[in-house]
């Protein structure tokens, strides 16, 4: 559907803001280098204040980068105003024009492009069908539910066939169930339209479900870039490991290294892991996902149960391994042995399911 899928390239992009209270300048975004392939769905993910929305608004043209250059389809666009950029944005608050009906909202950008009446009608009808709003052309925006407004916002952006579609936390105003169905919908429409999309969110499960690639940002800096699986299974730092899903960090030391194997000493126990690039004597952190561990009578690390809580689909344990708190989620606990607070047991896991930092 799109005229031309465009890629985006950010080269050494920085944005400086001034803190209104302390009057101190700080980097809202610092030296971001990103390449977004044409046709891919890329998510900027991070906690609030990490610079993800600022990055998106720089791509849209609402903010000007203080350093670096942004390329859209190979063209440097730093000096272009938002109305001259081949991007279309879906806003967090939808930002529908409240004095227009659905048809006029969607047709707004087309009219500016001086298309003929018939052509506009055709395009609007087609796009409203794609987002599942056919026949609602004459409704006013306040007669729509939140999800429907969201679809209009999406249709309004899509109909312009932009080189890149930008999403600024588009689902944050919807309730949890609708959020899940809308994100699937957005992904379907993006793939059907074959359009490049950059999506901002702070919701990690949303990011995982929807993206080809995730860019994790922290305090204005790009922390890690990769596919959802790469980011989940191979986080490059504790921030990423902790932000994506839950993670236990077990600190230890590599005591012996041979071949692709290494032996770590953690809280007095020895654990053999197979990971390249570990040198002897180095401090290591073992990242253990709560669902990758079990509690059992035998295992790698002795522990003491301090919390045991039935959650329905899983039993939630907090155990102490030495001085380290480890969280374990034991799924489908119906026919399993339940450990109670005060019991001593072992944390058991397959080292293949862990990751060493």
């Amino acid at each position, binding site marked *: 559907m799109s005229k031309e899928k465009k890629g985006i390239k950010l080269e050494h992009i*920085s*944005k*400086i803001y001034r803190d209104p209270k302390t009057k101190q*300048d*700080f980097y809202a975004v610092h030296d971001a280098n990103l390449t977004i392939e044409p046709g891919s769905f890329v998510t900027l993910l991070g906690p609030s204040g990490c610079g993800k929305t600022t990055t998106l608004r720089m791509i*849209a*043209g*609402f*903010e*000007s*980068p*203080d*350093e670096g250059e942004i390329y859209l389809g190979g063209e440097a666009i*730093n*000096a*272009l*105003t*938002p*109305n*001259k950029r081949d*991007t*279309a*944005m879906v*806003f*967090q*608050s939808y*930002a*529908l*024009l*409240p*004095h227009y009906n659905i048809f006029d909202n969607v047709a*707004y*950008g087309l009219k*500016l*492009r001086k298309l003929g009446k018939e052509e506009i009608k055709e395009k609007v009808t087609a796009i409203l069908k794609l987002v599942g709003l056919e026949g609602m052309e004459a409704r*006013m*925006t*306040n007669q729509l539910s939140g999800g429907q407004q969201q679809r209009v*916002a999406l249709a*309004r*952006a899509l109909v*312009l066939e932009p080189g890149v579609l930008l999403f600024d936390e588009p689902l944050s105003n919807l309730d949890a169930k609708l959020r899940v169905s809308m994100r699937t919908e957005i992904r379907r429409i993006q793939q059907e339209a074959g359009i490049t999309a950059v999506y901002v969110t702070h919701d990690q499960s949303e990011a995982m479900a929807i993206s080809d690639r995730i860019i994790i940002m922290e305090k204005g800096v790009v922390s890690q870039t990769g596919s959802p699986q790469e980011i989940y299974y191979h986080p490059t730092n504790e921030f990423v490991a902790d932000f994506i899903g839950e993670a236990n960090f077990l600190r230890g030391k590599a005591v012996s290294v041979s071949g692709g194997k290494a032996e770590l000493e953690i809280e007095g126990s020895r654990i053999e892991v197979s990971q390249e690039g570990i040198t002897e004597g180095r401090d290591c952190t073992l990242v253990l996902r709560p669902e990758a561990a079990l509690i059992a009578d035998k295992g790698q690390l002795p522990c003491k149960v301090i919390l045991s809580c039935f959650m329905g689909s899983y039993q939630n344990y907090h155990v102490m391994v030495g001085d380290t708190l480890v969280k374990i989620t034991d799924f489908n606990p119906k026919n399993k042995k339940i450990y109670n607070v005060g019991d001593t047991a072992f944390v058991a896991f397959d080292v293949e399911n862990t990751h060493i930092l």
Partner: protein
Amino acid sequence: MKGKNGQGAELDRRKFWADPVMVTTIVVLIAFLTLFILYPLAILLVDSFITDEGITLDVFKRVLAMTNFRRAITNTLKVGFLVGIASALIGLLFAYVEVYVKLQTKMMGGLFRVVSMLPVVSPPFVLSLSMIMLFGKAGIVTRYILHIYDNSVYGFWGIAIVQTLTFFPVCYMMLRGLLKNIDPSLEEAARDMGASRLRVFLTVTLPLILPGLGNAFLVTFIESIADFANPMIIGGSFDTLATTIYLQITGAYDKEGASAMAVALLFITLVMFIVQKYYLEAKSTATLSGKASRARMLITDKSVTRPLSFLCSLLAIFVILMYICVPFGALFKTWGYDFHLTTKWFVQVFKRYKGFKAFKDSFVLSLIASPITALLSMIISYLVVKKTFKAKGFIEAVSMLAMAVPGTVLGIGYIRGFSAGVFRTGFLQGLYGTGAILVIVFIVRSLPTGTRSGISALRQIDKSIEESAYDMGAGSFHVFMTVTLPLIKDSFLSGLVTAFVRSITAISAIILLVTPQFLLITVQINEFAEKGAYGIACAFATILIVITYGSVLLMDLIIKRFGTSKAIQEQ
């Protein structure tokens, strides 16, 4: 920390210049504000400080040596102080009764509405006229009811009473907004701990609205010392600064002296304005930012409601009576002596005193000024709220500054600034004495009110709505016309009518600038009232009230019919 070579700022600059319509608008706006607000004030400073001998204080020394000027300063401050306090207190009474007290009858609500409406529609000197007709030498109350034959309403008390009655509704509306924002649970908590109602009022309610009360006082104070029309008509020999300045230039032809006096008046209002705007206004809303969490339990205790409602009704009825007095003044054969109804004054207005021309001139000039004012104030609010550029602070400050400039000061500034062209070079000299300069004065006088309402309307609109239009490819101008303006349509329409009403009832600056080729209603009323021809003055004033009230009604109708619907505003 600037980034590489200030790249961000440079890019913002390039994006800014890429929008020629906006750049042109801003340039034109700056030129307009400079030429018609800053320049006339600057020329007053030049006039009063620079003589042939260079920069001196000679003019000020000369003016200060005049006893009438010194007396005028004390007179003005005395009146301003009293009127400020009285208006704030009466305003508080009305606001408190409306927000806290369960009113016994529907009629009370109606009275309150009328009172809050009056200052919008009434020409400035109507109350002075009726004051004289009710309580003067030939006043109905004084002469026929109380049989006092030598009562004088002219002077200090006349001005103070009339101004208080004119300005207290403004305080009432300001304070009503503040009281409504007080969370009832604060007061309930105090009651619950055993405080009496009076104690709650004194220890909870009053401290919360104290900055607001101060704000109301200062706003009235400024209005009072800037007021020209009332002291002119009811002042008698009691001169205030505004009238003294007027007499200095129209009577004594002392232009430098008048300039220096105008600078003095401007200085007082400016200081007050700055205190009010930057200190009290922020403070009065800061303490009461929250919304009331739920409805207030209204006071039903008869020992409280009865005296308070009685007092309010009495005042409201008194004010309304004074307004009603004006049309009757135009219908009685000879006020105070012969109470037969007649249409002779209306006939005279049109037959002998070119009434039709007066209404046409006033009407046409105001009609030209009001759409320009409304559009200009919406553009200024749009730029101030939604855009960032270097000259923004200048535009905002100057258009707000116009609020602090008394009409008389502006009038003198225009005389000095334009009668011989800009900086006495002859440039734009053709403007002086034309209808155009009157229209410009109308615009400048109404701009601050319109801008203020535009700014508060625009602040309610989510920034991303305009951004989305911009993002879809619309330029600034297109966004303004298709998104911004439709969304603040109500504010625009009411700005239109407010500008019209303010213009058609304006007098202070206009009276100094009008030339015989234009007959303006307000100037006519002033002239006839001064001559003691109250019948004619009342006839003019009656028709003026009808026009202004009619336009306000029309506006309400139009807003109801075409205005933004409630549902859209709530989004």
